[in-house]
């Protein structure tokens, strides 16, 4: 850490970092209530759709996929942050990652859970969703493994399990700290979850090996998940979807929206739980650099996609692009501004990267841009497919918008509940760093240094 840390006692450190576990205030209840209402309304909208029919959505022929699938891709994208950021930083031994870890990993688990619900919400007959699961049955029926949707389901289930394990594993020692500091039902809960962690040398060795292994294993899973989501589109014959750049482009887009979302959440958590001492401008500076690189990559991928289509000028593909640019011009410009122009311009400057306000605006706009990006990939291609006689348009209905709002509220609710029940800052990780940090004298300067290997 570049700022010289004020020496605090272990007790004080634990107390500050576990501040989110204090008894909830009325403001917390108010927030939870508000989010609960939004979720309840979304549930009502979904039930309404299930009981009456898919006509309550804005879908039609030819646009048979709309907001639900846009949401699905968007939330899978968000889920890429956590695990990717935290595992890449863990493997590259970036010590500044430590206070961010937990927030990012928890985000992954909840966003992928929300994402996984959308393909089910979107089914015409949700009540028989289990036909998609390969379960043994008397009729000898089996799902179709040639379908990208089945790859999707497999990848998402794998990712939910993997990222939950990753989150839980990293939390083990913190749960033990929380267990030792709490009473009543919480003590029982943490006691069970901590699985008898005592903090012996052997436990720590195994723990470090397991975390490194998990971090290394989860990266290919994360990359494959969004590649598979991209294949939902890339393996079709729909003009505008059938593109080989899609898998890497989607993965880059996913990391872009994910990293931006981590930054947004960092800002909120920092403010809500008064963690200014732990989430310093240095962290935002580093995350900003990461965001800058990914934004440049995204810009490159987008450029390549448009450039190849423009150069080939295949009539139907070009029709999709011209239709998209003509009908959705403001959205397209906002996307380009939010995903590429603004981040590249702003994040080049150290002062802006260290400004919390700027980072909030940049990170929020990136996710607005990424939502639009998914819309512009899915809807215009379907609107203008090969047969001009059945071209159409799409406008989301109140049902789809309510379910989308409920998804955001539901994610926030899960996250607030999680923050109230579990340590939001990786306590042991941070403290481990502090213990290792010593001052070394080089010439006439005293410099902070990290002793030992990670």
């Amino acid at each position, binding site marked *: 850490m570049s700022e010289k840390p004020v020496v605090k006692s272990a007790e004080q450190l634990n107390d500050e970092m576990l501040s989110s576990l204090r008894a909830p205030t009325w403001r917390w209840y108010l927030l939870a209530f508000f989010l609960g209402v939004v979720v309840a309304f979304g549930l009502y909208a979904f039930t309404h759709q299930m009981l*009456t*029919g*898919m*006509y309550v959505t804005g*879908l*039609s*022929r*030819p*646009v*048979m*996929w709309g907001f639900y699938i846009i949401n699905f891709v968007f939330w899978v994208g968000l889920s890429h942050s956590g695990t990717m950021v935290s595992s890449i930083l863990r493997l590259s031994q970036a010590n500044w990652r430590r206070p961010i870890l937990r927030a990012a990993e928890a985000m992954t688990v909840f966003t992928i859970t929300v994402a996984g619900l959308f*393909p089910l919400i*979107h*089914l*015409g*007959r949700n009540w*028989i*969703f289990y*036909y*998609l699961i390969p379960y043994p049955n008397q009729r000898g*029926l*089996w*799902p*179709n493994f*040639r*379908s*990208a*949707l*089945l790859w999707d*389901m497999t990848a998402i289930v794998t990712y939910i399990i993997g990222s939950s394990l990753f989150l839980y594993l990293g939390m083990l020692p913190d749960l033990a700290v929380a267990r030792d500091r709490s009473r009543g039902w919480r003590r029982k809960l943490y006691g069970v979850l901590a699985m008898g962690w005592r903090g012996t040398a052997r436990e720590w060795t195994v723990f470090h090996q397991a975390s490194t292994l998990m971090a290394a294993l989860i990266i290919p899973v994360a990359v494959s998940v969004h590649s598979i989501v991209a294949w939902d589109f890339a*393996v*079709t*014959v*729909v003009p505008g979807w059938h593109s080989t750049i899609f898998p890497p482009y989607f993965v880059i887009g996913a990391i872009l929206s994910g990293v931006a979302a981590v930054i947004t959440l960092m800002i909120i958590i920092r403010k809500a739980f008064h963690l200014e001492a732990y989430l310093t401008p240095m962290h935002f500076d580093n995350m900003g650099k990461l965001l800058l690189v990914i934004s440049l990559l995204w810009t490159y991928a987008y450029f390549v996609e448009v450039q190849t289509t423009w150069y080939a000028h295949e009539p139907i593909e070009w029709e999709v692009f011209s239709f998209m640019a003509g009908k959705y011009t403001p959205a397209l410009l906002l996307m380009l501004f939010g995903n590429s122009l603004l981040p590249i311009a702003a994040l080049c400057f150290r002062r802006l990267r260290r400004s919390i306000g700027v980072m909030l605006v940049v990170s929020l706009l990136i996710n607005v841009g990424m939502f639009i990006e998914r819309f512009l990939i899915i809807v215009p291609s*379907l609107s203008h*497919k*090969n*047969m001009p*006689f*059945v071209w*159409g348009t799409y406008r989301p209905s109140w049902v789809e918008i309510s379910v989308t709002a409920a998804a955001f509220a539901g994610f926030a609710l899960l996250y607030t509940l999680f923050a109230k029940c579990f340590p939001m800052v990786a306590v042991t990780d941070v403290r481990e760093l502090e213990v290792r940090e010593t001052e070394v004298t080089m010439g006439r300067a005293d410099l902070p240094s990290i002793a030992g290997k990670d």
Partner: protein
Amino acid sequence: MKLTSPYKWGMVIDLDRCTGCGACVVACQAENNVAICDEKEIAEGRSMHWLRIERFWVGEYPEVRARFLPVLCQQCGDAPCEPVCPVYASYHNPDGLNGQVYNRCVGTRYCGNNCPYAVRVFNFYPHRWPEPLDNQLSPDVSVRPRGVMEKCTFCIQRIRRAKEDAKADGRQIRDGEVRPACAQTCPSEALVFGNLADPQSRAARLARSPRRFRLLEGLGTHPSVYYLKGGGRENV
């Protein structure tokens, strides 16, 4: 493609004979229990016709001519709708038809997106047949519930019946013995149905015409529906 059946059903549509009267659309609706949609549903792009007649205006006033293109499921040899269905509701049957199992369909609508001809229709609405129209429903064809995808089947119920008759007589189906409702009804005989695996069938002979083309052939879907248009000696 290797055939596992002596039949490869196909259709030839002579566009120079099509008058755009719409009799085929009505016949299909009556034969296959196709839902009746009101104006609102059709304006929303949720009509249920398995067969549509695309109308195009060619030329400038006063030299305007109407062109008609009847489009139904092309029963592709390499159908884009089939591999994308996660539950095998959309599958390839031995006669080369693209089958659709309504009971198995969960309504992902992936097949509808991936069909380049946009001939798959989805039951957005729960459809009902007001009395006494419900008495007119064909008992050979299942009535589809809301939330499932449906499309032209080449009147598979008629093919089945012809097969049973042929089997009882210990022979194969004769050319012209089975005709889907649309081909049966077409007043100008623009639609000819038959077994393309039999090179002597009328449909197979017409499909070899120099006037033939298939819709969006460049996509490599190998449709079983051939269109005939201009170009040849009988250019009209």
